[in-house]
């Protein structure tokens, strides 16, 4: 090798990444991509807060004195009082291999915004996000809690914490609020209370639960959300305690199936019971199941429906046609076989129906370049998926310098290529 000459290059040591690494350093490699997206309007429709790290703040907001005391009594053991934990929750960091999933222990300014807000801001700025829709993390499994009242109390408390302490500090952070779906009446109260809040862009059912979405008890809820003009989201999760999933002996198997399974189940019930016909203006988003499952489900349901239309009498067209009118978030975007990814996006009408999601700070997060790198999408489709579709769903104003015009309504779009 040649000798090193005078005027040598600058050599800078890069630190080992651990769970104390600043988000901005962790995601530094994303920053150059973000610079290229400056004229894109980017909406991250699914990122997460780590409410477990601020659990005492959440439980402070439990309305009931008794339930609040019960939650606080458990905090002395550093437990998240009242929360149900599921097997596998602590496996997500691949046993330390993915440090940011282990913990976000980085330093934040003590006299700055709420620590959770600072953490989200760092991700927003580094990834080049305009609007970030944040969901809870451990609470995504709360629908499996055996006590319905716990879901109600904690769900309401979280909604208060999120709307009073988090979104108030940065307009770029918005949320779809937690619906305690095991109690339909309490869900309606959430919608009534927050429908006019501009930082509340929709309402969320955590999909991990054993509740039939077609039950008549939910019709007032769907009507209320439809009237609000805001979307209803079904946010997927896993459940290793499910009897079927207990046949999986490895997290990889359970997570691969379970994170799709509950949305597969609920979407199937949603369609065959004709809910799109009952609430035609209700915008529905299916979140964090990726997109590969849709190619299967659309074909499967179409095949069965053509043979058994009498069992889905409210439907006026094939199930897949309703799917193409619903919305789906991208993450975790499957792309190991680009031909399948392309075919799936065509089948689901991704140009108008797909919404970019990062899932940050979780272990299988995606970045905006997961969309811009797709070779088969044209420029307009990329812009739509990254943010303009979400602007339409969430009624967001797109700044003029971000190619202002909202994506056209589905029927005005050219067919997917």
């Amino acid at each position, binding site marked *: *090798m*040649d000798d*090193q*000459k005078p*005027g*040598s*290059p*600058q*050599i*800078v*040591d*890069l*630190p*080992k*990444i*651990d769970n104390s690494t600043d988000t901005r350093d*962790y995601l*530094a*490699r994303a920053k150059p991509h973000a610079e290229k997206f400056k004229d894109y309007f980017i909406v991250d429709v699914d990122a997460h807060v780590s409410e477990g790290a601020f659990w005492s703040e959440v439980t402070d907001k439990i309305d009931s004195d008794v339930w609040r005391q019960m939650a606080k009594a458990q905090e002395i053991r550093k437990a998240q009082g009242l929360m149900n934990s599921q097997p596998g929750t602590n496996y997500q960091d*691949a046993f*330390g*291999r*993915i*440090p*940011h999933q282990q913990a976000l222990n980085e330093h934040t300014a003590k006299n700055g915004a709420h620590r959770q807000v600072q953490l989200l801001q760092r991700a927003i700025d580094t990834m080049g996000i305009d609007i970030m829709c944040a969901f809870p993390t451990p609470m995504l499994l709360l629908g499996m809690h055996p006590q319905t009242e716990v879901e109600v109390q904690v769900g309401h408390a979280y909604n208060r914490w999120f709307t009073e302490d988090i979104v108030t500090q940065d307009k770029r952070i918005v949320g779809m609020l937690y619906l305690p779906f095991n109690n339909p009446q309490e869900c309606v109260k959430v919608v009534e209370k927050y429908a006019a809040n501009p930082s509340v862009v929709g309402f969320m059912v955590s999909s991990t639960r054993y509740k039939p979405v077609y039950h008549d008890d939910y019709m007032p809820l769907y009507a209320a959300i439809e009237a609000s003009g805001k979307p209803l989201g079904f946010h997927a999760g896993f459940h290793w305690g499910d009897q079927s999933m207990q046949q999986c002996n490895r997290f990889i198997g359970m997570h691969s199936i379970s994170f799709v399974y509950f949305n597969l189940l609920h979407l199937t019930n949603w369609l065959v019971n004709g809910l799109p016909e009952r609430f035609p203006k209700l915008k529905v988003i299916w979140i964090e199941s990726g997109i590969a499952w849709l190619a299967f489900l659309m074909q499967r349901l179409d095949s069965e429906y053509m043979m058994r239309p009498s069992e889905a009498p409210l439907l006026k067209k094939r199930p897949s046609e309703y799917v193409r009118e619903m919305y789906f978030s991208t993450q975790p975007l499957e792309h190991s076989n680009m031909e399948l990814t392309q075919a799936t996006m065509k089948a689901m009408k991704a140009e108008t129906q797909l919404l970019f999601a990062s899932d940050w700070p979780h*272990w*299988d*997060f*995606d*970045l905006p*370049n*997961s969309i811009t790198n797709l070779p088969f999408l044209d420029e307009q489709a990329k812009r739509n998926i990254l943010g303009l579709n979400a602007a339409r769903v969430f009624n967001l104003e797109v700044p003029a310098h971000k190619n202002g015009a909202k994506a056209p309504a589905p029927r005005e779009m050219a067919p997917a290529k």
Partner: protein
Amino acid sequence: MSAVRIGKADEIKDGDYRVVAIDRFEVGVFNNGGRFVAYENRCPHYDGPVCQGRIYNRVEEVLDERQCHVGLRFGAERHIVCPWHGWEFNLETGVHPGDKHMKLKKVNVEVLDGDIWVETPRPR
């Protein structure tokens, strides 16, 4: 191509590594059993800072002669794990254990008189 001296070899113990940015060229230098290997600090998955991750020995599943599961163990093969999403690469070869087409980009590295030299892509 030219080479840049990044430091002393004895500063990187067996099983440890150092990642440096030489101007804008980022490279991870690993001491793998006394032999030095180096890779560009870019994961082929999503461009993540792979060399700044943690090192784990490859997990092996032990079967008996009937092909029945006996247990899990750490093997001798060391892997560098991308901290972004957990993609693992054999430190010796730079190759993912499940897809030979997914590999880290090797960088030539040499130890001369106790100094580590890495080859950089741009002339100095």
